[in-house]
């Protein structure tokens, strides 16, 4: 078991997500920064779908009841294993009783903690990803615990990955034209591709809102499916970028669709961070 001594600001368990229930309105969920998590699971020689902790902004304090191996990735945060600093994208051996504590956030906003074999909670509707009301809680709580398998011997093929930190600082979101892209007029197109946008304080796993607006519209459409990475344009000209816990249908024009890579890049942005859209 992993004991959650302090949960931090918003810590959840996530795998690759919950598929085949969107026709019932259940969002796909899953890790926000898929690029970081693929690397962690690869280092631990886990399945890509193995569940990891997604740690947002202020990290937790955790203690391990069984030996295992861990790797961190994503946002750069000061993390200590029994008071000694450890770094991202490197495999560390864990002994019974070891304590992992998070300090200052340095770069990005979401850090990931993977354990050898992944966390082994009971999947619900085919996934371990937290999402209320499918799972009981929205995030992990203080003084609870999460199960994982014991691992004493593991000789990783690669113990450390050199990852270019510039991924976290990337400002360009590569996007496809969305289904309603053709309804944009020249003014809106110019604003969309020549504005440096900034993330609004309303940003979470459901959606990222944007501080700057573009010209509004009076296009009305019937409710239709939306996806993680769908950029909606409200009549008032506000941009709403749906993320992994985003609603599965919507009635605003879907003007752009983020690439998988762009979703991962955006998921490391916090309030005030800048970005621009670039068509693929």
């Amino acid at each position, binding site marked *: 078991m992993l004991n959650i001594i302090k949960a931090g600001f918003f810590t959840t368990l996530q795998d690759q997500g919950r*598929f*085949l*229930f*969107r*026709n*019932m*309105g*259940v*969002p796909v969920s899953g890790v926000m920064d898929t690029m970081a998590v693929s690397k962690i699971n690869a280092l631990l020689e886990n399945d890509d779908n193995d569940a990891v902790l997604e740690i947002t902004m202020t990290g937790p304090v955790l203690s391990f009841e069984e030996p295992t191996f861990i790797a961190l990735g994503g946002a750069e945060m000061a993390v200590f294993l029994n008071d000694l600093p450890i770094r991202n994208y490197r495999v560390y051996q864990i002994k019974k009783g070891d304590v992992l504590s998070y300090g200052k956030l340095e770069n990005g906003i979401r850090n990931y903690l993977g354990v050898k074999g992944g966390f082994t909670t009971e999947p*619900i*509707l085919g996934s371990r990803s937290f999402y209320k*009301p*499918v*799972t009981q809680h929205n995030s992990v709580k203080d003084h609870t615990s999460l199960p994982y398998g014991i691992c004493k011997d593991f000789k990783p093929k690669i113990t450390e990955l050199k990852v270019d930190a510039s991924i976290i600082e990337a400002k360009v979101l590569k996007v*496809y*034209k*969305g*289904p309603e892209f053709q309804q944009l007029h020249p003014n809106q197109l110019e604003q969309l591709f020549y504005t440096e946008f900034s993330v609004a304080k309303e940003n979470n796993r459901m959606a990222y809102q944007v501080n700057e607006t573009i010209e509004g519209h009076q296009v009305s*459409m*019937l*409710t*239709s*499916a*939306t*996806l993680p*990475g769908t950029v909606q344009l409200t009549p008032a000209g506000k941009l709403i970028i749906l993320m992994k816990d985003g*609603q*599965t*249908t*919507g009635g605003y024009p*879907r003007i752009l*669709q*983020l*690439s998988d890579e762009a979703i991962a890049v955006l998921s490391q942005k916090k309030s005030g961070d800048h970005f621009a859209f670039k068509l693929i």
Partner: protein
Amino acid sequence: MSSHKISIRPFGVHAILVEWPVKIEEAILNEILEFVQYLKKYHLKESEWEFIPAYNSLTLICRDAEIDFGVLKPKLEEWYLAKKEPVLLEQYLWRLPVCYDAEYGGDLQEVSDHLGISTQEIIKLHSSAIYTVYGIGFLPGFTYLGGLPEALEIPRKPVPRAKVFKGSVGIAGKQTGIYPQDSPGGWNIIGICSVSMFDAKSKTPCFLKVGDKVQFYPISKAEYQLHKIESEVGIYKMEKLKWDA
């Protein structure tokens, strides 16, 4: 079947969007649902593809692979026009109890004032119509029900409520629906339904499917309390009738 013109557009690399004429019509909805059945039966594996029908559109989402739009678009067009055996859609009419007491229908009086009809008349109109599920989204188990009597059409609330209680029945525009959980919401609340709309522990977490029919019937406060308890302990028996389109 296949009587309408469709348009097919890319939606990122994991999804493709098929659209029918922009109309709220049962004939169009049923054509979409028949096409889904045909695709599932012959061409697209249910373990790999998600099918999201809503009003006049069908979004196909591929779980793992990237879609080659140039390849899939002509195939979909061909499949749409292919001669098919008649499909029997399995659809049900669900009768759901609603308590229209002012305690739960927080906007009932306001709606009455706005529309200029009595609250009794609102209840009568709302519970006499047979609604069609045109889409499911917004929240797990939230159904967009079309077929609201014209006399009940009313805009969304200018300022949404921060908290609408689970089970609340709302109306907005040409639609009505039931909030499946506590959430913020901008629809005008006129009652509460005792049946749980979404249960992750059930084999069918959402019993309503797009294309199903819903009719509400008024119940008293005492009946609401009783049904709610029955529903929580799992002994509530839902009224469900086979619907022949």
